[in-house]
C-alpha cells in the first residue's frame, strides 16, 4: 500500500473565501496533480476515515479533501455559495431534500444506485447511505427505583411524577441551533401530539439544550443528565459501552429512522469523482465498512420491517414544509413557548 500522508487543518474561524463555516478540513493526498475529490459532510472525519482509506486504495492517485460542517452550513455552502464540492453528505434530510428539489443536485444513476430501495432515494439525485435510529438514552443510576420507560408516554408520566429527580437533568437538541435537532423535533411533532406535551413538561423541568449528540452523551456519562432525548443512535452505540450505565431506548410508540443522504451538487467541479465515491458508499464494501467500522447502520429494508416501531423519515416533498421560513418561525416560536419558560 502506498504511504498516505494525512494533513489535518483545523479551521476554527470563518473560512477565508466563503461565507459558510467549516469546522474541520482534512486533505488525504494522492499523487501530485492528480484528480481531487472534495467532500462536504456533517459526519466527523474520524468516522469516515476507514471509508476514505478504502476508496483511495481502490482509486490510487485520487486526492481527497474532506470538510466537516454543520448541516445548516452544508446547506448554505451549496445553496448560497455554490461551493465547489463533488459530494455533499448530510444528516439533515429536509435540507438535502430542499437542495434537490430546488435543482441544486445533479442526477446520478449507476448499477449501485439501482440496488437502493425506492424509499432510500429521490429522483436519482438524493441517495441514502445509512439509516440511523433516533433514540433516547437513559441513565440506569438516574432511574434507580423507577420503572424504565418504554414509550414517550411512560417517560412523560415519570417526569410528571418525579419532577425533582428530572429537574435540570434532561438534555435534548436545541432545534433553533441544530439542523438535526430541528428535523427530529418537527418529525416528532408531525408524528404525535405527545411531543408537545413532552415539550411542555420538559419545559417545567429546566432542560439543557445542545447542538450535538456527542456533548449530550458526554454529559449523560458524566452523570449531569439522566435523560438524553432524541440522540442519533449511531453515536450512542459507538460511544457507550454496552453494559455501562447508559441504556439506549428505542421508544416503542415510534422511533424515527434518519437517512443520512448524499447528493452531487450542481456546481461540482468533478461530478464523476463524486459519483464514484457515492457508488463506493453504496457498494457492498462501502456499506459493510459504514456498518461495521464507522458505526453507521447500512441501508437494510429487512431490519426496518422486523421492528414495528421503526419509522423511516420519508424522502418526500413533505420535508420541504418545515424548511419554509414562516413554518420554521412558527414552529420555533411554539417550541420556545413550550420549553423555554420564564
Amino acid at each position, binding site marked *: 500500500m502506498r504511504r498516505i500522508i494525512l494533513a489535518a487543518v483545523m479551521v476554527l474561524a470563518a473560512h477565508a473565501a466563503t461565507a459558510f463555516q467549516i469546522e474541520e478540513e482534512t486533505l488525504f493526498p494522492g499523487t501530485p496533480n492528480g484528480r481531487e475529490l472534495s467532500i462536504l459532510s456533517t459526519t466527523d472525519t474520524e468516522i469516515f476515515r476507514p471509508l476514505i482509506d478504502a476508496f483511495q486504495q481502490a482509486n490510487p492517485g485520487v486526492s481527497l479533501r474532506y470538510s466537516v460542517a454543520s448541516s445548516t452550513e452544508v446547506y448554505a455552502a451549496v445553496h448560497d455559495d455554490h461551493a465547489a464540492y463533488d459530494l455533499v453528505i448530510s444528516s439533515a434530510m429536509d435540507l438535502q431534500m430542499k437542495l434537490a428539489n430546488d435543482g441544486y443536485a445533479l442526477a446520478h444513476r449507476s448499477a449501485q444506485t439501482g440496488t437502493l430501495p425506492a424509499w432510500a432515494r429521490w429522483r436519482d439525485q438524493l441517495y441514502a447511505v445509512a439509516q440511523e435510529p433516533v433514540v433516547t438514552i437513559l441513565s440506569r443510576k438516574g432511574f434507580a427505583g423507577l420503572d424504565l420507560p418504554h414509550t414517550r408516554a411512560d417517560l412523560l408520566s415519570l417526569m410528571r411524577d418525579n419532577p425533582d429527580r428530572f429537574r435540570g437533568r434532561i438534555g435534548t437538541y436545541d432545534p433553533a441551533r441544530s439542523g438535526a435537532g430541528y428535523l427530529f423535533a418537527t418529525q416528532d411533532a408531525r408524528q404525535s401530539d405527545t411531543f408537545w406535551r413532552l415539550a411542555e413538561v420538559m419545559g417545567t423541568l429546566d432542560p439543557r439544550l445542545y447542538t450535538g449528540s456527542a456533548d449530550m452523551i458526554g454529559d449523560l456519562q458524566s452523570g449531569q443528565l439522566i435523560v438524553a432525548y432524541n440522540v442519533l443512535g449511531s453515536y450512542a452505540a459507538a460511544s457507550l459501552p454496552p453494559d455501562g450505565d447508559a441504556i439506549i431506548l428505542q421508544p416503542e410508540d415510534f422511533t424515527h429512522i434518519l437517512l443520512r443522504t448524499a447528493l452531487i451538487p450542481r456546481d461540482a467541479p468533478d461530478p464523476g469523482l463524486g459519483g464514484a465515491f457515492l457508488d463506493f458508499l453504496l457498494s457492498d464494501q462501502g456499506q459493510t465498512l459504514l456498518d461495521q467500522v464507522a458505526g453507521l447502520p447500512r441501508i437494510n429494508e429487512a431490519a426496518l420491517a422486523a421492528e414495528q416501531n421503526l419509522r423511516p423519515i*420519508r424522502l418526500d*416533498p413533505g420535508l*420541504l*414544509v418545515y424548511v419554509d421560513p*414562516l413554518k420554521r418561525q412558527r414552529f420555533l416560536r411554539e417550541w420556545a413557548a413550550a420549553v423555554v419558560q420564564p
Partner: protein
Amino acid sequence: MKTLFNPAGSIRRRLLWLLLIGAAVLSGLLYLSVSTVARSAVETTQDSILGAATIAIAEQLRGADDGVEVDIPYTAFSMLGAVGEDRVFYRILVNGETVTGYDDLPLPDTTPAGLTPRYYSHPYQDMMVRIAAVERPVLVSSRSVAVQVLVAQTRTAQDAIVGQMANRAAALGLGFFGVAAVLAVVTARSVVQPVNSLAEAMGRRGPQDLRPVTRPVPQELTPLVAALNGFISRLSGALTRTETFIAEAAHHIRTPLATLRAQAELALRQTDDDATRATLRGVIRSVDDSARSASQLLEHAAVVYRSDQRADDRIDLAALARDIGQSFGPTADLRDLTLAVHTPDSPVWLTADRLLVETALRNLVDNAIKYSNPDGQVSIDVDQSATHASVRVSDRGRGLDGARRSHLTARFQRGGNVGDVVGTGLGLTIVQEVARAQNGSFTLSDRTGGGTCAELSLPL
C-alpha cells in the same frame, strides 16, 4: 397501391389491402383515442391532487393581529410525493406580495375565484410545471386581505404514466391490428374461394367437356355462370350441327355416287368401244375416289363427335388387333402381302372407346397395306407396359421419305411419296384425334431396313 386499382390485379389481394388499410386506420384511431383518454384521465387525477394540496394550504390560512398566519400542513406536500418523485414549488402571496415560497413562481393570468383552483402549465427552472392557484380572502383586523396560494409540481411521474399508457395503447392497437389482419386474410380467402373453386373445376375439365356448369355458386357469380352456360351450349350446338352437317353431306354424296358407279359399270358392260370403256373406267375410279373421301370425312366427323362424348368401354386390345388383322386378310392376300399379328397370350385390357380405337387401328393397317410393295410384310404388334398398352403397325414399304409427322397428321395432307396411291389425307388425322381423345400418343417413324412403323400408345 398499383395492385389495388389495377383491373387485372387479384381480387383477393385487393380485398386484403382494403381490409388491412381499414384495420390499420382503426388501430391507429384506437391508439390515439386510448392514449388521449388515458392522458386526460392522468392529467385530471394529477390536477386534483395538486388542487387538494393547494386547498389544504389555503384552508389553514388564518387572520391574526399582525397579518395572515400561514401554516402549511405537512400532508399538503407529502401527498404530492405519493404519485412520483416530482419537484414541488409553492408561493403564498398576501395582497400581491410574496410572503413565503418561491417568489418567481409564475402567477395565473387571471385571479382564481372561490376555492376552485385554477390550473395552468408554465416553464419554471428549465422545466415545465403544472401550477394550481387559489385565492382566498382572510380577515385581518376586520379588513379583508386576498391571499393567493400557488402550488406547482413538475410532471415527470405523469409523463412516465402517460408514456406507459401510450405503450399499452400501442400494444393494444398492434394486437387489434394483428387480429384484424388474420381475419382479413381469412375473409379475403373465403370470399375468393368460390371463384377459385369454380375456376379450378372448369380447369379440370377435358378439352371436349361441354357440359353446363351445375355446381351451386354464390349469388354474385350466378350471372357469370349463366352466361358461361349459355356460351357452352351455343358452342356445343354449333359443334354438333357441324358434325351432323358433315355426316349428312357425306351420306348424301355417297348414295348418288353408288348409283353413278352402278350405272357406269352397266354402261361398261354394254359397250365395246375401247375409248368409251377407258373413259368409263376413269369415271369409276373417280367415283371410288370420291366415295373413299366421303367415307373418310364421315369417319373423321364421327371420331371428332365421339371424342366429345366418348364411352368408357373395357376393351381387349389384343383381341381387337386380331379381329382387325382378320378383316384385312383378304385385302392383304389380294396384294400378296403377309399380314402377321403378334399379341401377348393374355388379354390386354384398357378403358377406352372401342369405336375410336378400332377406327384408328383400321386406318393404320390400311396405310401399311396401301403403301407397301407387293410381297411385302405387314405386322401388327400389341404390347403392354405398367401404365400403357400400345399397338405397333409396321411395314416394309416405301417409308415416309422425310415427311414430318406433324405435317402428315394435318387435315387433307398427304406425303410426297404417295405416287398413284389414292387417298384423302385424313387417315392419320383421325389416328391423331383418337390418340388425343384417349390421352394417348401417336408416333410415326421410318424403320431401319426400310418401311414405316406407326405406333399408337394408350393409357390403361
